[in-house]
């Protein structure tokens, strides 16, 4: 038994003439929570579809639980998944919907009620799916993914449409599952949503991997930032100019300048700005934060 739940090499998918996923490589160790992060359209769903045998890769290979992705029947009985949001039959109840999938996979139907209760739908299981709120639909999708009692759980933006409390609950549920030894591969377009529970992070941008590894490694990649504000909007570009001249990358965001520089450069900037006749309204060194790093890595400069 290999110790990777997912391993992918040179995987690509071409749609029309564009590579939606471009020659990506990454591994997800067994028993971890791996956050799969990237902005809209970066190829997260496309990657997951390839891993589940729903679409054929244009290039590359992948292995799930040690089995090649060309043979989904060898591993899917041990995989639970929800791709691109929940999808169910509106005229059937939540319970009946799960029953359909339990029958299909040959799983014990007794699990249906247990799972409905696990995701907090115990009392609404008999209502039709079309009467569910967005959050309830999302929960039903998670319950369906848990039907096979999976070794690997793949969830595509499971917290979409959930309120803060719901997001907390899903996070706690995923962490619990991981503690029981299930590998969780979960996508989101917000790193902040996953950083708390993830051991591993795979970051995607425009179909390419920008980071893949333990979350600790991501922290060390972060650069300290100084945020400067001035009373006069037109001064912002002059501040940025001063920073760039001293060799520090600077970018204007909203009403402030973000400068990649260590904390002790702040007084120097202050003096330089003063000399140039600019009054700074705020000058704050900022502790590295994952979201910032994320934008550095995935956002357009």
């Amino acid at each position, binding site marked *: 038994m290999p110790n990777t739940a997912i391993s992918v090499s040179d995987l690509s998918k071409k749609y029309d003439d564009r590579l939606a996923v471009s020659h990506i490589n990454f591994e997800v160790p067994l028993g971890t929570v791996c956050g799969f992060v990237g902005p809209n359209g970066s190829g997260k769903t496309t990657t997951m*579809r390839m891993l589940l*045998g*729903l679409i054929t890769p244009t290039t590359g290979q992948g292995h799930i639980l040690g089995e090649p992705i060309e043979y989904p029947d060898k591993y899917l009985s041990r*995989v639970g998944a929800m*791709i691109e*949001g929940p*999808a169910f039959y509106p005229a059937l109840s939540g319970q009946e919907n799960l029953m*359909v999938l339990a*029958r*299909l996979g040959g799983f014990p139907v007794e699990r249906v009620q247990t799972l409905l209760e696990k995701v907090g739908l115990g009392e609404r299981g008999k209502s039709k799916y079309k009467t569910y709120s967005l959050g309830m639909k999302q929960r039903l999708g998670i319950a369906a993914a848990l039907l096979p009692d999976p070794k690997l759980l793949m969830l595509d933006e499971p917290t979409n449409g959930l309120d803060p409390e719901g997001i907390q609950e899903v996070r706690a549920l995923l962490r619990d599952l991981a503690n029981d030894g299930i590998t969780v591969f979960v996508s989101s377009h917000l790193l902040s949503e996953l950083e708390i529970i993830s051991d591993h992070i795979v970051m995607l941008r425009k179909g390419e991997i920008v980071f893949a590894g333990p979350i600790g490694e991501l922290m060390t990649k972060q650069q300290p930032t100084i945020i400067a504000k001035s009373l006069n909007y037109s001064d912002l570009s002059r501040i940025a100019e001063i920073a760039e001249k001293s060799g520090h990358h600077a970018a204007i965001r909203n009403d402030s300048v973000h400068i990649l520089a260590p904390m002790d450069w702040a007084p120097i900037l202050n003096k330089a700005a003063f000399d140039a006749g600019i009054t700074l309204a705020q000058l704050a060194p900022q502790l590295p934060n994952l979201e910032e790093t994320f934008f550095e890595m995935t956002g357009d400069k």
Partner: protein
Amino acid sequence: MFNVMRAELRKLRRPTLFLGTMGAVVFFSGLFSALLYLLIDSPQGNADRGRVISREVLALASGGVQGFSSVGGFLGIIALCVFAAQTAQEYTYGTLRNLLIRQPSRMKILAGKLISMIIFALAMIVLSAIISIATSVILAPTVDVSTELWFSPEGIEFLYTTFINVVISVIGFGIIGMVLGLLLRSPISAISLGVLWLLIVENLLVAVKNSTQSWLPGSQLSIIATGGNADVSYSHALATGGAYVAVGALVASILFVRRDVAN
């Protein structure tokens, strides 16, 4: 495959779908058969397209299943709609991805779906046979049609062969519905295209040029249900209709097995 079947039956058992369809079957089977007797003396005719089926014909051994075989085409249209909707909805609801995650063998999904829908169609046909024959038996004496020969050995044989023919025809229509559903991936387009073609285009073509009857797909399947007619023989209809269904099914299943599931 057995698992796929059970899962599909769970969906087909849904009360609005099951009871709704069976209700329509009861209503139309009763109506078609009743009109055969109630309009027997009407100058507009008592059957399809103003034809007249006389007392003498109804009193033959084949008379008992006359109503049943004439409702066969209608059962075919229902089967087409149900098969098309049940297949195409997996695309529009996005549920196909769930099905394929639980059963990655796409041929098994198709086969299981087909078998369960055939079971549904059989229930429909049996019900229709019971209703239309019962209606005939009740109404025949009121218009002086003798039912004596209906239950003779020959009459029973007519019952069996008509039943088999209607089953073949209805399954053929159903598979065409499934093929349309797989190709168009939308219940509304699949059903409207199918029904429009069968009820309007084919009828117009046949009305304009009667010889088109011998090669139009829907006509072949309807002719199978009635055991052949004056213009087209049963074996010709069976061979031509069978070929249409087989080619359609082959193309659609190859496409289904190969195509990316990206919605």
